[in-house]
């Protein structure tokens, strides 16, 4: 997981191609640079393969599971409890008639699951961001790939070297 530490600056390499980006990443990792942020216009398998190698699976699914379970529980709780409030009989059926309540529980399962997933996405992706990170470049949303390497200033030359060799179109240092 990449975190820009304030005392460190970043060196950003802008790439036009996937294979060059992958090469830069492989090289950086080989040299022991793990504090990387990669900007891509689309998720790219090749890049993900490099990055995901030593990372755990994203925990979004836990949010989904918990949300969904909450939904199921509250669906049944709400329906059964509120029916018991008056105990009104309709159509000769028992007051707490489970089959119809399954529908409500199901819908709440999906709803809460969806909302929880959204919450997971927002928290884990640290959204919203009100100010762009320094390393970001508008081209990254179109057709360029970016590799930001967070390193102390004294290592930046070496990083630049690696990026250059990999085939970066442009290299810049940001705060």
């Amino acid at each position: 997981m990449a975190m820009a530490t304030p005392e460190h600056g970043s060196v950003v390499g802008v790439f036009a191609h996937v294979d060059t980006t992958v090469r830069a990443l492989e090289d950086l990792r080989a040299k022991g640079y793990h504090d990387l942020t990669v900007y891509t216009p689309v998720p790219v398998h090749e890049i993900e393969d490099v990055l995901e190698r030593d990372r755990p699976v994203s925990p979004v699914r836990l949010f989904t599971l918990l949300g969904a379970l909450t939904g199921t529980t509250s669906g049944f709780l709400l329906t059964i409890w509120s029916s018991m409030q008056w105990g009104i009989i309709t159509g000769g059926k028992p007051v707490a008639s489970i089959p119809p309540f399954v529908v409500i529980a199901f819908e709440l399962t999906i709803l809460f699951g969806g909302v929880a997933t959204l919450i997971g996405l927002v928290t884990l992706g640290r959204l919203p961001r009100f100010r762009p990170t320094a390393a970001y470049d508008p081209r990254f949303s179109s057709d360029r790939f970016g590799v930001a390497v967070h390193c102390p200033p004294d290592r930046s030359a070496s990083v630049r070297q690696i990026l250059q060799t990999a085939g970066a179109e442009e290299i810049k240092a940001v705060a």
Partner: protein
Amino acid sequence: MSAKAGVGALGALLLAVLVFLALSSWSRQPAVAQASVQPINFPHNVHVQTYKIDCQYCHADARRSEYAGLPSVTRCMGCHKITAADKPEIKKLAEYAAKREPVPWVRVFKVPEFTYFPHKPHIRAGVACQSCHGPVETMTTAAGRTGPRLVNDLLNLTGVRPAAPALTMGWCIDCHRDQNATRGAKAPLDCVTCHH
């Protein structure tokens, strides 16, 4: 954020449900507001406390009718021909009596629309007037804050359930349920008893 947080969120939600259930069982009391403006400044406190007149002496229809009834001018004059006849408020009363006109009292208590509320069974069941009308014996002109209020509704919407305001449905139900539970009364909880 982690799985721990998710468990925490679920816990918080369940807790919220419990708190909400707890709040739901708040008790009920008639709300009192400032006194109404009436054509004659009728002091309930004097009549009830000083002269120990029973409510139903004047509101004589309560025990036999849907309405509690208001005393006729003649009945008022029965006492006030002599009693306090020189007071300005009584002179007003005497004027109505002389003109043979009813006193245009202003309504204070009114149940919501489409609701049938008969006094008779409540009197028969021994419900004190004050349970619904508040401590009228301490009031000058009758006062009551009744009916649903926006603040109350909004609080309800947020899940906090404040005590139901007087003369709303929840308030009636609270009392009926309470009476059935504590006194073994047979206060009906059937919708059509009041809504027909």
